[in-house]
C-alpha cells in the first residue's frame, strides 16, 4: 500500500532541476508525478517515478542528496468535495499531513493524491476503513 517517493535536495540556482530531469531521462526513467517545496535558499523536489530504486541510485551517483520516502497514493473522486472527504477521514483519525500533491490519471475519472503522513500505517487503516482506495506501489509505477 506504500509508494516510494524520491526526494532531492536542490539549491535555488538555475539549471539544477533541469539536471535532475536530464539524469532521469538519460537513464530511461519516467516521471509520474512531481512537486517542489521551496524556501529562499533551497527546494525539495519530490518525485514519483516508474522505477524508484534505479532513480535513487542514478541520482545519488550523479552527486545529488537523495532520499526515498514512503508515501500513500489515494484515489480521489474527480468531482467537487472529493479531496475534502479524504481529508476529513485523516482529520478524524487525528493524523497530521506533512504535505500532499495531486496528479490526474490518464483516461480515468479519478485523481490521485499523494500523502506524506507520519503514521503511515494508521492512515492506511483509517482510509481503508472508509472504503477509500489506496493504490499499491506497483500500480502507481505502472500508470
Amino acid at each position: 500500500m506504500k509508494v516510494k517517493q524520491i526526494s532531492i535536495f536542490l539549491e535555488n540556482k538555475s539549471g539544477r532541476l533541469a539536471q535532475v530531469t536530464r539524469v532521469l531521462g538519460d537513464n530511461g526513467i519516467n516521471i509520474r508525478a512531481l512537486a517542489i517545496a521551496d524556501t529562499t535558499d533551497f527546494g525539495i523536489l519530490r518525485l514519483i517515478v516508474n522505477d524508484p530504486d534505479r532513480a535513487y541510485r542514478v541520482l545519488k551517483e550523479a552527486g545529488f542528496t537523495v532520499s526515498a520516502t514512503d508515501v500513500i497514493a489515494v484515489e480521489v473522486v474527480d468531482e467537487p468535495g472529493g479531496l475534502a472527504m479524504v481529508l476529513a477521514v485523516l482529520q478524524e483519525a487525528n493524523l497530521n499531513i506533512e504535505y500532499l500533491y495531486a496528479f490526474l490519471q490518464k483516461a480515468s475519472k479519478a485523481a490521485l493524491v499523494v500523502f506524506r503522513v507520519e503514521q503511515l500505517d494508521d492512515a492506511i487503516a483509517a482510509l481503508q476503513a472508509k472504503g477509500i482506495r489506496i493504490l499499491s506501489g506497483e500500480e502507481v509505477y505502472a500508470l
Partner: protein
Amino acid sequence: MYWDREHETMSREQLRALQLERLQLTIERVYRNVPFYRQRFTEMGIKPSSIRSLEDLRRLPFTTKQDLRDNYPFGLFAVPMSDVVRVHASSGTTGKPTVVGYTRNDINTWAELIARSLVCAGATKFDVVQNAYGYGLFTGGLGLHFGAERLGATVVPVSGGNTQRQLMLMQDFGTTILTCTPSYALYMAEEGQKMGLDFKKLPLKAGIFGAEPWSERMRRQLEEKLDLMALDIYGLSEIMGPGVAMECPAKQGMHIFEDHFIPEIINPDTGEVLPPGEEGELVITTITKEAFPLIRYRTRDITRIDPEPCSCGRTHVRIKRITGRSDDMLIIRGVNVFPSQVESVLLEFGETEPHYLLVVDRKANLDYLEIWVEVAEHMFSDTVRKLEDLEQRLRERIESILGISARVKLVEPNTIPRSEGKAKRVVDRRQI
C-alpha cells in the same frame, strides 16, 4: 602629553635594563609556580639563572594557544586562586574558552596602561569616554573602563549595541572620546548621518578603535564622518586585553608598552626570530604579570616592529597594523572565530566529516557571517520543516559557541570547493 613620563620616555638603555630585571623575575616566578613551564624549561636544560641577557629570551620555548587549552582553566596561573581577583576569557575553538586571570596588581597595571593609552590619544580627566566595547568576559569593556576611571575621566559604560541610544547619549552627555571597534564606529557614523546628526557639532575629539583589523581607508572614513582623530589600540586577552600597544597621534604604528611586554617577530613557519622591520608573527613575553605570565606567547598576529624614534617622544618601539593571521582565525565584529569551532558544532549534528565554508562579508560596515553547510544524506529530510529546523538548531548552537550570530545556508553536496591538502574553510569578502 604622557601619563607615565618616566616609563614612556625612558632611554632604550634604561628600558633594556628594566626589561631584563623584570624578565628574570618572571622566569623565576613561572619556574617556581607553574609546573608546565618548569617542565618545559627542564626539558630544554634551562634554569632561571640561565637567563642573563635579553638575548637569552630566544632560547626559551614558545607558548601557544594550544598550551592554554591543554591547561584549561587555571593550569597556567602562577598564583593561588585566592590572589586572583578577576578572570576574563576569549572564545575557545571547541566551546571551551581561553581563561586568563588577574591579581589586584595585574588589574592595577592594566588600568595604568589604559590610562596611558587614553592620554596618548589626548584624553584628560575632563573628558567623557563613551565605552562601547562589550562588557563581560571579553576584555574590551572592563579593560577600557577601569583605565578611564584611573585617568579620572567620566566613563559612560554603555557597552556595545543599541546604536540609537549610543547616538543619543553621545549628544546628551557630550562624549569626547569614543571607544569601540572601528567597524561599529563607522556603523554609528552612518546611522547618525541617516538621522541627520551633524558630528561636526559634537565635541568628539578622539576615537580609540581596536579588537579587529582595520585600514588607513577606514581611518580616513572615521575621521571624516565622526570628525575626530581615530587611533588604533592593540591587545589580546591572553596577554592582558586592550592596552598592550597604543597608537600615538603621529599615527605611525602602535607603541608597545615595553616596560611590561617584550615583543619579538618570528617567522611563523620556522620560529626563527626576524630582524626589526621584517614582517612576521608577533610573539609577546609578559614581564610584570603575576596571575597569568606568558613566556614567548605566539599571538598569531602578523605585523612588523618599527624601532625608529617617534616624534611623540615615546621611546617604546611600535608595531605596525596587524595585516593578518598566521592561523585561520577570523575576527568578526570584534569576536574571535575559528573555523574549527564551527566544525565542532557540525560534528555534533552528524556522524560524518562535514564540508562547510565560512563566508564573511561587510555590509554597511557590519560584518556578516554565513556558514554554508553541505547537506549530507543523513541530514536530509523530505520535509521543509525538518530542514528549517536543522538550520535553526545549527544557528542557535553556533551562536552559543561563537558568541555571534551567523546565517546557516544549506547547500548541495560537492558544491563547496575541495582543495588538495589543507581544506579552505573561509572566504573573506570584506573590503577593509
